[in-house]
């Protein structure tokens, strides 16, 4: 009994002396810079590129074989304009059914949706295939709209295009996409998301000025119904759908892609079922939240909002362009967002989130890591879990 008291006293004394008891829950990340100073592409992904069973990192012109990511293998030459690359998404998809994950991407400058064919192994000869020229692509959204288990590709364009990979009877990709164009006056432009707003079980499409209600048949291009229920600016891709306050209705989480602000839109309905939306600010003085994702990053069984600044989203001309950059996750508790800073500072010593970052447990320790690309460099944040177990 006496020893037990001593132990408690020692623990209390130690905690009091060291003063770190408050931050016990803070996640600890190991920041690793990937590639050289030319690794300034804004999109990145984590997947097993060479099929060796080890996850690799992909960003722009290069992929980095795991598990150490020290080497790099060339994928393709990508058009470079000012501080941009014509490469705003890096989504892994076996497009041609050869069991190797290819990359689907698009960019602003080339106005074209592409897929890059994985040659296997560490061979550098990736071939870039054109899917369609659809106009400036701010980014792509990959979402399973028709519930068949395979994501569709939606470049952020106006009008709204949906691309479906044509698959064979075994579900393997054929290398060919079908293009559908939603026949509606609404939708399109900067800001795109997908989620079930109406609560009918079908994913709707969400835009900066309203949403398109999905028809019973996703591919009935005349059946999408436009609801102009809000008016945002140049907002994030994606616009997230999530029941933020636990009232059973889908709310929106929206980032200002080229200005100050991060907010959520609360969906309410009156007795007649009429929808109303009210805005709740999460951030007012941090800017350029261009990419948002929901992941359970602290393993508490609930999703957190992971996001960060897209450094120089408009080449230094956005509000807050010269403010510090940062990478954050927000715990969500009944409508309250609490910011946790993973990284923060000037772009020469900190990381933002780019336009298309990736969250996945790359080292297999059970904690999701973050691959954060951007004009400031490519950084891998290895999640070590809470700082004090």
């Amino acid at each position: 009994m006496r020893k037990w008291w001593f132990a408690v006293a020692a623990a209390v004394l130690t905690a009091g002396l060291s003063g770190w008891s408050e931050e016990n829950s803070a996640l600890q990340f190991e920041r690793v810079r990937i590639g050289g100073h030319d690794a300034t592409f804004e999109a990145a992904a984590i997947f097993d590129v060479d099929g060796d069973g080890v996850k690799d990192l992909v960003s722009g012109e290069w992929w980095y074989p795991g598990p150490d990511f020290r080497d790099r293998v060339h994928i393709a030459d990508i058009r470079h304009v000012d501080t941009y690359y014509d490469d705003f998404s890096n989504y892994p998809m076996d497009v041609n059914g050869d069991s190797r994950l290819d990359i689907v991407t698009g960019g602003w400058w080339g106005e074209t949706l592409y897929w890059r064919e994985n040659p296997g192994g560490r061979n550098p000869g990736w071939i870039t295939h054109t899917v369609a020229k659809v106009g400036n692509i701010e980014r792509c959204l990959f979402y399973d709209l028709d519930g068949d288990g395979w994501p569709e590709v939606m470049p952020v364009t106006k009008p709204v295009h949906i691309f479906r990979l044509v698959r064979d009877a075994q579900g393997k990709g054929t290398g060919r996409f079908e293009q559908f164009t939603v026949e509606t006056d609404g939708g399109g432009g900067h800001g795109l998301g997908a989620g079930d707003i109406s609560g009918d079980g079908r994913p709707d499409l969400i835009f900066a000025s309203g949403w398109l209600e999905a028809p019973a048949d996703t591919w009935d291009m005349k059946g999408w119904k436009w609801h102009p229920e809000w008016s945002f600016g140049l907002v994030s891709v994606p616009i997230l759908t999530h029941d933020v306050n636990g009232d059973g209705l889908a709310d929106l989480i929206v980032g200002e892609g080229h200005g100050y602000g991060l907010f959520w839109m609360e969906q309410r309905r009156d007795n007649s079922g009429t929808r109303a939306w009210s805005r709740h600010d999460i951030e007012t003085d941090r800017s350029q939240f261009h990419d948002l994702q929901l992941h359970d990053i602290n393993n508490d069984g609930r999703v957190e909002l992971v996001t960060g600044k897209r450094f120089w989203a408009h080449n230094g001309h956005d509000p807050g362009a010269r403010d510090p950059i940062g990478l954050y996750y927000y715990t969500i508790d009944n409508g309250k967002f609490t910011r946790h800073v993973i990284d923060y500072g000037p772009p020469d010593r900190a990381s933002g989130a780019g336009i298309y970052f990736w969250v996945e447990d790359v080292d297999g320790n059970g904690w999701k890591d973050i691959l954060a690309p951007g004009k400031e460099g490519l950084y891998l944040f290895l999640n070590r879990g809470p700082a004090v177990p």
Partner: protein
Amino acid sequence: MRKVAIAFVAAACWVMAAAALEGASLPAEGDRITVTLDVLLDRLAGADDQVRAQARQIIPRYGADAVPGLVKLLAREEAPVWRTAFICLRDIAHQPAPVTMDQRVAAPPRVAVQRALAGVFLENASEALVRRALDLMPQVWAEGDDPAPVVALLDRPELREAALRALNETATPMCLDAVARFAEDTSRDPVARREAAMALIGLSGWSEASARARRLLADPDPGVAAVGARLLAESGEPADWSALRSAAGSLPPDIPDSLRFEFWDACLRFVDRAARAGGQWELAMAWYRDILASAPDTVTASGAVMGLARFGDETAVPDLLAVLDRPDAEQLANPALSGLLALRGRAAGRAIVDRWEQLPEDFRAAIVEHWGTSGGDFEAEWANDRARNADRPVRRAAVRGMVKGSRTAAAECLAAYLDAFPDEPFDAWELPLRRYAAEMVWGDEAMKRAAALAALQLVRRSKDEETVFEAMRWLKAYPVPEALDVLKAEIRSGGLSGVPTDALAALAATMIRDGDRENGLALAREALAGASPENSGKILTALTAGGIAPELTELLGVIRSWQVLGPLPWQISAGFSGAFAEEPQIDFSAEVDGSGGKVTWKSVKETGPLGEVNLAGVLGMVEGAAAVAVCRIVVPDPAKAVLRCGSDDGIKVWVNGKAVFENDCDRGMAPDQDLIPVELNAGENRLTVVVTQRAGGWGFQARLTDEQGGPLQFSVVP
């Protein structure tokens, strides 16, 4: 036998000759090598620097064979000798392993050097030789080479520092382990152990560093433990924080302040490293706060303040302000202010503004000056606000910052400030303002205006002639309404010289449009007085650009009422020598033969703002024709005046039947192309104009002024 003797002598001569050769190539056989190496070593040890330099070039080629002799020379007192030997040994240590004829790789020459040096350390060698050998050690020792002979030297106080330096620079795991063992050995002298432990600081890539640091941190000797803390600070690993922080927080009360400082300094270094590493921002911030709250000295606390500012965001603002309420606030105030200035981003700026009233006045002044100079949009806007609304010291600082930061609103704020505080010494503003104006004058319209406002202050307040001259030049380049008095004085003294007439007229037009009619007209009048045709045309164009001609008609003497006849036959070749050599017959009721049939007089009362008559519109589009225009001018007294005309194409003028001007030209019309002195009689005067038409546009314009270009009192008979 005789042959043998001859051969022996010949061989000896050959060797001697070879040895005498400067820069000779390597001998090929063993006897010769031995002999030559000895000779070369002798030469290296000799007094002739040139010969030594030659020997130094060749000796390293002997590799391991040269090592014993070189080590002996390393012990010599003469600096040229031992230094040359040092260099030769170094070169030999760097040579690759030789490959034998049967392709076997022999031991590298480095091994021979390493063994020879180990021998030096083990022998009772002179201190000088040992020190030189220690200097060579980092270039000779490889992983796997036992550092024990060097470690043994740590017990010799006079050699300890050199030995530790050698071990630190060699930095093989065995070396570092040996040093760590020495430092951990509590049976040894604590001072020696502390020195040894310090030799482990600053190494990167030693996998054992953190573990050994922890052991040292737990050492019973506080001096050694302090070095352990310093060593552990290099890890920056969150797992190490607890041990480090606990050690710093549980020091006995009687520990010397210098050692206590080392523990806390280690904590600060640890957090700095963690913050720089990234990915653990919240931990680093919490640790900085902890240090700020707990560090027993203000130096460490200041470091924590700066860490919060360097890496922090808006959440650091309350921490930085809280230090002002501490007992040691006097020491921490400057770091806190520096920290507030170092924070970046709108969020941090807003957090500071939210607590503005809590800030001491000197903080407010420093912040607004900094923000005015280099802040972002939010900060600059706040500086702008304070530059207009704050108390004098803060307001002054804000204006100063805005001037330094070349903010567009700075000049306006400065003018208001100087007006509000007439006792403000202007000397300190002169140079910043000159720099400001010189930069802004190259910018857009708003910046040019700011440059002019700054220049106006310089003109009005500077006592330096050169400054005023320069400022006047900027003011002329962009005249602003605020500078009206200065500009008028300048015009009176030097006319329009240097002032862009269009800018000046635009200024007058702006003033008239904004309601300051009297001053605007006065400026326009002064600007127009005596202006050249080219300048007055520009002025008129600018004055009428804003649609204010009705306001200026009287002032400008615009003639807007004519009787016009045409088109009349006219040939280019005739000019004004044919039908229009004399004034045409004036009979307003007559019908005459025109170039396309009968024509009669037409009354024209709709002109352009400067009296422009579009003859093509009135008489039709023709080519090779002429028109006659007549008006009657009434003046109360005889007057000398100037008729200012523009025409498309040629023009001839009669006054009261007397030809006063002709210009047979092919041109487009612009105001005041021709200035024609005329004499008018009291009462009515007839003004007759013939305007020729070659092709394209066709028209004319006329106004009547006094001789100086100012208004002339007259009326036009309808």
